[in-house]
């Protein structure tokens, strides 16, 4: 039995892994959250390996999900765990977005799944930005600070050169997970004030990447559509979404060439 203790957004999670392999998998995925073992957990998980191959994920000693392979295990653990954390951190507005830090300020990348958020995030990490998350951006609705959620960056395909992945990358049947130890620089460990939100649209035919401001109303609607725990907030989260839009630079970003996209994001933030 190997035990992993994680502190995710101040929520302490204990994961009992029946074997070193499943422990190693989750350690790669969540190494940035590992904490000391002398704290009482808020959430309890167990992982058992199965024969034929697969895993059982238990929550509070009850079966939560059966996973066919490594991809399934990480996917189900992530989904269940983040839902439970959202219940315990109702002061945060959780957005489906990537988050990075640049010069002490946070920016979000908002886009549907599969449209290049994580690939752009990986390119930005290799261009001087600090990683906060590629998937989940928790924003404190009072301070408007973005909290780090630095799980292993998850890609569905190898990014183009020169943004190759490090040797530490975990390959599953469907995904590539880059643990924070494989990053070229440090990752964000503290909340950072939200400065800008880029709403991404991938268009390989558009020539150069382009950025254009959008109205606060449009930004508020898009933020609302990408928020995950709206019912935890007053007036169904509408005020929180509008507040986030009102205090941020909100832009539509048409992406194509990764290097040029990174340069455009950097120059936009510098102005």
């Amino acid at each position, binding site marked *: 039995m190997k035990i992993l203790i994680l502190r995710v957004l101040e929520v302490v999670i204990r994961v009992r892994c029946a074997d070193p392999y499943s422990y190693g998998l989750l350690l790669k995925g969540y190494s940035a959250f590992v904490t000391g073992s002398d704290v009482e957990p808020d959430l309890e998980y167990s992982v058992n390996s199965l024969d034929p191959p697969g895993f059982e994920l238990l929550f509070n000693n009850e079966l939560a999900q059966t996973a066919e392979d490594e991809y399934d295990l990480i996917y189900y653990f992530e989904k269940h765990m983040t839902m439970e954390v959202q219940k315990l951190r109702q002061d945060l507005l959780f957005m489906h977005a990537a988050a990075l830090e640049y010069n002490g300020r946070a920016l979000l990348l908002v886009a549907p799944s599969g449209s290049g958020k994580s690939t752009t995030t990986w390119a930005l990490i290799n261009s001087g930005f600090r990683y906060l998350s590629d998937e989940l951006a928790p924003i404190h609705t009072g301070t408007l600070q973005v909290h780090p959620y630095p799980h292993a960056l998850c890609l569905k395909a190898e990014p183009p050169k020169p943004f190759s992945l490090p040797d530490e990358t975990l390959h599953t049947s469907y995904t590539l997970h880059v643990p924070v130890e494989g990053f070229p620089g440090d990752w964000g460990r503290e909340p950072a004030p939200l400065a800008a939100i880029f709403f991404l649209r991938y268009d390989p035919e558009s020539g150069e990447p382009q950025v254009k401001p959008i*109205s*606060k*109303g*449009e930004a*508020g*609607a898009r933020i*609302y*559509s990408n928020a995950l725990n709206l019912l935890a907030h007053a*007036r*169904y989260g*509408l*005020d929180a*979404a*509008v507040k986030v*839009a*009102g205090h941020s630079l909100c832009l539509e970003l048409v992406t194509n060439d990764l290097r040029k996209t990174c340069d455009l994001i950097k120059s936009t933030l510098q102005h």
Partner: protein
Amino acid sequence: MQYRKRENLTVQSVDEETLILDLDSNHIHQLNPTASFIWELCGGGISVDRLTELFAENYDIDGKTARVDVENVVRQLLDLGLIKTD
């Protein structure tokens, strides 16, 4: 015929625009400044004639142009279920 806002909508103004959350249809609507102007006037019940007068005055345009714009917006607001008729 009088037009008025539908009940049970969650509304927030943002600059000159309006966001309207309709939990019955699970949609969020973004009204531009002109639609927001008309939406606000529908608060207590109002006719298209009166809307047209106020719209023409506010945007300093002729009555015929204002009528076309108002009818377009009112039709869309009705289609979206954001206003109703008495």
